[in-house]
């Protein structure tokens, strides 16, 4: 038998350890080595979900309803799978907006509404107080049980004086702990590191304790799982615990309980506190997503064995199945394990109470009292200089108040309700936050009005269908409306609203409250318009993952304020040192050297409001800011105007961007054009250099011959004639060269004058042959001309074609051995002219080169050809201009054939194909 002082001493010792751990955790932060920047600590701290309710209540529920305890853990496990999408978004939103609690989150989302903030706070407090009471009850009962053993019946709670009730002392110690480690700083977004570490530690203790009992019962008392289940199966009243139950609505109950706990794991204030507010790194979620469900599985493995063992071992109407966990080691005489189990239950209870009260106190101070105080002018400037201390005082008082309220509730309700029922009532209360939050982060259309209507309707239905009837049943309220319905209206009976019967009360309540809540939220959101600030907050929340580019963020705000006013306000709420440091940092970011140089613009107001929000919540921060800022109400027209201006600025900057792209493109084009011009310039230089060289050559002969003739009058007549002949020939060459250079320049620049008419190629060939006859005669080259009698006309410039023919013929004459042949043929719709010689031919590499200007080939003759190097390029130019083609075919050593084709002119009357016409 354990002495009460031993139990008390151990309990005190454990709480002392807790204080030490929390203190160490806080010290580590100051030393710059945070313990909570660790995914495992984060995941374990989430296990604050498992309270005394889990520790004792699961077994209690399993002992009466079998597997019915499971949905409470299936729900969170399912939810954990969605955390990466839902919880991560909530965490991101909260970090960006410096959210301090779940009330702050909802208020902030719906236009920083103080009304919503205080409503959420009230719902949370009302909903959670029984839950805290539950923890105290568990501690109190377990202590009493341990003390009075082997008497298994518990004395009624109201027979124990308050001052001798362990629950009372535990309540006081938890309040002290929460005050010490939960309200050290003012800025709630600065994390409570010591607290989190202590909670993680508690999670380990309660898990180990529960597993120890489980192993002891399963393997110490019985021979493993199989043994327990076999023995239990032999008892008909226990066998049904293995199944889903015979109720017609068993599956509905399961489903709704699972949904309920899915919402609870997200929206219980303590879960929000641990998972969102105390989160230091989003990536810790990765670990929590698997570690937390694993924790739940571990703590549930032995629930059924312990419950069955309890039922097999203990019996009697007085026995509270909730206490099987503690009873089993005691009955089996293992006092040490019993003590450890008691500590496990204590840790489960204290963890919940501490975190819950810290979360609730933040909500009470930020969302309930602050707006009230700000509005009633208690906190007007100059009246209260030490606001940070006042705020902390409020929070500490709130903690004490809530804990004591919980204790009061526990004392008053007594044993009327089991642990699990109380817990589920709380779950159903916080589930009322779900539509506003889930809707708020995914649907921009959700409005403040919608959230208020939804929350109020949901809460009222919840109150009417769960706590009120339970209070009536506990004998607290007079009346028989639970059975009869109010005023005898049967379809308003709280447990079977609108005739919906068969579900258990929690499922029934959850169903109707969700119908009312979601319905109210949707309908009210759809009918009412959103204010400007609601709209802004909605986009801020829903689009939190979309990066807003600096400068494109539109501020829909207009008002006047002054920097000293803002500074003064900040100093009062967050303390002089922190306010100055924050403003100096802000000034540095804005690129000014001192706070005095800051502009009192909307950005500064925004910054100040955010800073305040971290301390007193978004809604209160807005009220506080309003005391120093004269805000001009914005009409819809003004908003549209501002949006218009902003979109114009954006459009203008886009235009500028586009213009600069265009300029870049133009620059690139200019650069390319410049390169081309340089290249052309180089080509022109080369051209001039070549032309002058070509001009100098005949000029040299002319000058030399002229000087010789002048200096040597004695020369004989033959010599004189020869030299004069040279002068004449070279002069002709010079003139030809000059003409061709001019022609070529004109051709290249497009200034060439064309006289296009119907031309008969036959006459062109004949003319050219006539004017080159002397060349052939001089060189003794035979010329053969093959031209058909009838040649269709082509559209061309007669003189230019003669020039082409002349060039080709004189070239041929120069290079031919002894014959040249001109052949004119008709090929379909083109006329073809070939000029062949039996000269040395042209190598394939040179066949294209000869069409470049000033390219002359010696073609192996001893004498350099007397050309200008422009004849062929000019000829090709002319033919191509007239729509034809000029080319050369040659085999070195076997002569060359220059050919060109020109399209036959289709006269307007001749519709028949050219081929037919020419056949």
């Amino acid at each position, binding site marked *: 038998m354990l002495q009460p002082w031993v139990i008390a001493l151990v309990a005190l010792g454990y709480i002392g350890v807790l204080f030490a751990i929390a203190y160490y955790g806080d010290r580590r932060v100051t030393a710059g080595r945070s313990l909570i920047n660790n995914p495992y600590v984060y995941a374990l701290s989430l296990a604050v979900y498992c309270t005394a309710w889990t520790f004792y209540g699961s077994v209690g529920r399993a002992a009466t309803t079998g597997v019915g305890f499971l949905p409470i853990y299936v729900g969170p496990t399912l939810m954990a799978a969605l955390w990466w999408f839902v919880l991560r978004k909530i965490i991101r939103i909260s970090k960006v907006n410096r959210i301090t609690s779940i009330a702050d989150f909802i208020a902030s989302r719906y236009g920083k509404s103080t009304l919503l903030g205080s409503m959420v706070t009230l719902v949370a407090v009302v909903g959670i107080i029984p839950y805290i009471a539950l923890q105290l009850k568990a501690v109190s009962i377990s202590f009493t049980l341990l003390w009075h053993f082997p008497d298994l019946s518990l004395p009624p709670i109201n027979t124990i004086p308050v001052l001798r009730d362990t629950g009372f002392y535990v309540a006081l110690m938890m309040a002290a702990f929460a005050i010490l480690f939960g309200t050290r700083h003012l800025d709630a977004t600065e994390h409570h590191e010591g607290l989190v570490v202590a909670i993680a530690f508690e999670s380990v203790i309660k898990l180990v304790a529960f597993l120890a009992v489980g192993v002891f019962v399963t393997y110490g008392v019985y021979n493993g799982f199989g043994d327990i289940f076999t023995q239990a199966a032999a008892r008909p009243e226990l066998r049904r615990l293995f199944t889903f139950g015979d109720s017609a609505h068993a599956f509905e109950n399961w489903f709704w309980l699972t949904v309920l706990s899915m919402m609870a794991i997200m929206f219980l204030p303590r879960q929000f506190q641990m998972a969102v507010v105390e989160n230091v790194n989003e990536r810790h979620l990765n670990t929590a997503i698997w570690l937390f469900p694993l924790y739940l599985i571990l703590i549930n493995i032995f629930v059924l064995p312990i419950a069955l063992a309890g039922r097999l071992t203990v019996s009697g109407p007085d026995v509270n199945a909730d206490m099987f966990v503690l009873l089993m080691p005691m009955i089996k005489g293992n006092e040490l394990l019993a003590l450890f189990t008691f500590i496990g239950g204590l840790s489960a209870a204290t963890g919940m109470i501490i975190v819950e009260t810290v979360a609730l106190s933040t909500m009470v101070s930020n969302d309930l009292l602050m707006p009230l105080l700000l509005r009633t002018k208690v906190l007007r400037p100059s009246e209260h200089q030490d606001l940070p201390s006042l705020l902390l005082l409020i929070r500490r008082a709130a903690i004490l108040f809530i804990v004591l309220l919980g204790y009061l509730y526990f004392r008053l309700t007594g044993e009327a309700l089991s642990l699990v029922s109380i817990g589920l009532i709380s779950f159903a209360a916080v589930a009322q936050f779900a539509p506003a939050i889930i809707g708020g982060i995914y649907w921009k259309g959700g409005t403040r009005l919608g959230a208020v209507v939804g929350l109020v309707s949901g809460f009222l239905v919840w109150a009417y269908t769960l706590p009120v009837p339970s209070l009536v049943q506990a004998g607290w309220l007079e009346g028989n409306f639970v059975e009869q319905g109010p005023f005898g209206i049967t379809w308003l009976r709280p447990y079977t609203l609108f005739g919906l019967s068969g579900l258990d009360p929690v499922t029934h309540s959850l169903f109707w409250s969700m119908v009312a809540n979601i319905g109210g939220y949707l309908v009210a959101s759809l009918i009412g318009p959103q204010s400007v600030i609601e709209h802004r907050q909605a986009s801020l929340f829903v689009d939190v993952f979309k990066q807003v580019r600096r400068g494109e963020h539109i501020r829909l705000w207009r008002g006047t304020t002054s920097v000293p006013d803002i500074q003064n306000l900040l100093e009062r709420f967050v303390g002089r040192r922190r306010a100055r440091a924050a403003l100096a940092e802000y000034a540095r970011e804005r690129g000014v050297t001192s706070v005095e140089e800051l502009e009192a613009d909307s950005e500064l107001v925004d910054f100040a409001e955010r800073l305040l929000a971290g301390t007193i919540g978004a809604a209160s921060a807005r009220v506080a800011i309003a005391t120093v800022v004269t805000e001009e109400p914005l009409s819809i027209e003004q908003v549209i105007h501002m949006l218009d201006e902003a979109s114009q600025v954006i459009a203008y900057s886009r235009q500028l961007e586009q213009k600069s792209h265009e300029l870049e493109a133009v620059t690139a084009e200019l650069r390319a054009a410049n390169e081309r011009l340089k290249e052309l310039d180089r080509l022109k230089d080369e051209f001039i*250099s070549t032309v002058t060289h070509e001009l100098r050559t005949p000029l*040299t*002969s002319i*000058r*030399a011959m002229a000087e010789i003739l002048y*200096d040597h009058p004695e020369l004989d007549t033959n010599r004189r004639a020869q030299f004069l002949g040279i002068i004449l020939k070279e002069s002709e060459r010079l003139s030809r060269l000059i003409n061709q250079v001019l022609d070529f320049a004109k051709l290249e620049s497009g200034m060439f004058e064309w006289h296009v008419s119907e031309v008969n190629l036959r006459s062109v060939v004949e003319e050219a042959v006539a004017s080159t006859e002397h060349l052939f005669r001089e060189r003794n080259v035979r010329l053969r001309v093959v031209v058909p009698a009838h040649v269709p006309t082509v559209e061309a410039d007669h003189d230019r074609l003669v020039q082409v023919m002349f060039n080709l013929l004189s070239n041929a004459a120069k290079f031919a051995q002894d014959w040249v042949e001109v052949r004119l043929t008709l090929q379909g719709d083109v006329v073809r002219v070939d000029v062949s010689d039996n000269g040395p031919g042209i190598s394939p590499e040179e066949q294209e080169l000869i069409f470049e200007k000033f390219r002359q080939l*010696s073609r192996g003759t001893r004498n350099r050809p007397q050309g200008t190097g422009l004849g062929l390029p000019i000829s090709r130019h002319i033919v191509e201009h007239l729509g034809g083609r000029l080319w050369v075919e040659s085999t070195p050593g076997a002569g060359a054939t220059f050919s060109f084709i020109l399209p036959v002119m289709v006269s307007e009357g001749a519709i028949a194909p050219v081929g037919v016409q020419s056949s």
Partner: protein
Amino acid sequence: MSNRTRPRRVLIVDDEPNIVISLEFLMQQAGYDVHVARTGEEAVELIQRLEPDLVLLDIMLPGIDGFEICRWVRENPAWDKVKIIMLTAKGRDVDIAKGFALGADAYITKPFSTKDLMAEVERVLEQA
């Protein structure tokens, strides 16, 4: 004029027949032993065979060009006494500089004055 018994041997290298005719006439009038090459290859062959006292060298030649021939002659110490006068239509400063750098003794641009040409020929041959 020199009082040597053998007349100075001059090699004309040019591919323009009419220029060759005028140069040939001028050199014969001055009493030199005149030879003519119309391509680079021919010039190389004649230089090796005749070892002329002077080469009147055009640059733009079919085959091996004048610059090449000049370099080739100067690379062989045996022909140090062979004088080279570049006679060309290439009148740019860079061409002239290149000619002298390759070892030409004079550089005359076409069209030339026959008197200047003859004076230059005599001056160069005097140096020998």
